[in-house]
């Protein structure tokens, strides 16, 4: 049986703990709600274009919630340390990446139609030729024709991806078209434009 003074000390201790726990609980609650709001308002671009920076942020919020559920409010708060600046950094990185991709698309979408037009012009003329030039045969010409058809279809798919807001996909498809068009031009004895040989 505890002495009266020990029982009182235990009560005081319990009250102190309750107050302390209450304070951390409130802090954790506020931190999680603030983080949730910041994550929800970060926008789709940050998920699309800064995945490497975004996933750790999402994981941190999940971890904070798990800690909160277990009653470990200090751990919940620690998980969300600097979450605000991290979200801002991810948004800035996403914005920069999106601009880079948009510029790449502008470049490709300005140049690829010129390559395709040049190929089509040459293929049309060679198709009308009574005899093919040295180094060219019917098989090569047919291959260039089917290659051009495939590149045209792929270019259309690239444009559809761009219109759907899928920038990364659009540029990957456009670069593939660039490679195809370069190959076709070379097979026809044509010189690809300098930009076609430039790094992606």
């Amino acid at each position, binding site marked *: 049986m505890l002495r009266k003074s020990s029982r009182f000390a235990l009560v005081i201790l319990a009250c102190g703990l309750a107050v302390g726990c209450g304070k951390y609980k409130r802090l954790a609650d506020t931190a999680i709600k603030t983080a949730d709001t910041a994550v929800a308002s970060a926008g789709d671009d940050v998920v699309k274009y800064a995945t490497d920076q975004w996933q750790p942020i999402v994981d941190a919020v999940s971890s904070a919630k798990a800690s909160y559920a277990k009653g470990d409010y200090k751990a919940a708060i620690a998980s969300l340390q600097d979450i605000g600046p991290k979200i801002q950094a991810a948004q800035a990185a996403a914005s920069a990446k999106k601009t880079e991709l948009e510029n790449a698309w502008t470049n490709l979408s300005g*140049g690829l139609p*010129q390559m395709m037009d040049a190929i089509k012009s*040459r293929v049309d*003329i*060679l198709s009308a030729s009574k*005899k*093919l*030039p040295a180094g060219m045969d019917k098989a090569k010409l047919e291959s260039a024709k089917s290659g051009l058809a495939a590149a045209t279809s792929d270019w259309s798919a690239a444009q559809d991806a761009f219109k759907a807001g899928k920038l990364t996909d659009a540029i990957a498809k456009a670069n593939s078209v660039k490679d195809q068009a370069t190959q076709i031009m070379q097979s026809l004895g*044509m010189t690809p434009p300098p930009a076609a040989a430039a790094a992606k």
Partner: protein
Amino acid sequence: MPDDKPKAPGADAWDATQWHEVQKGETLSKIAQKYYGDPSLYTKIFEANKDTIKDPNLIRIGQKLRIP
């Protein structure tokens, strides 16, 4: 035909125009033979260069021609 519209920076890097510099003794027919295998297709070269060739029988050494 000359394009008077201002071009975007880097636009020339995508220019896919095929050029040929006229050599001594060449005619449009011979150039068409080289690129198309068919001298009668010289008309395609002439049409593509109407801004610089007035007479298909008169081309100059060193002249740069578009080869469509």
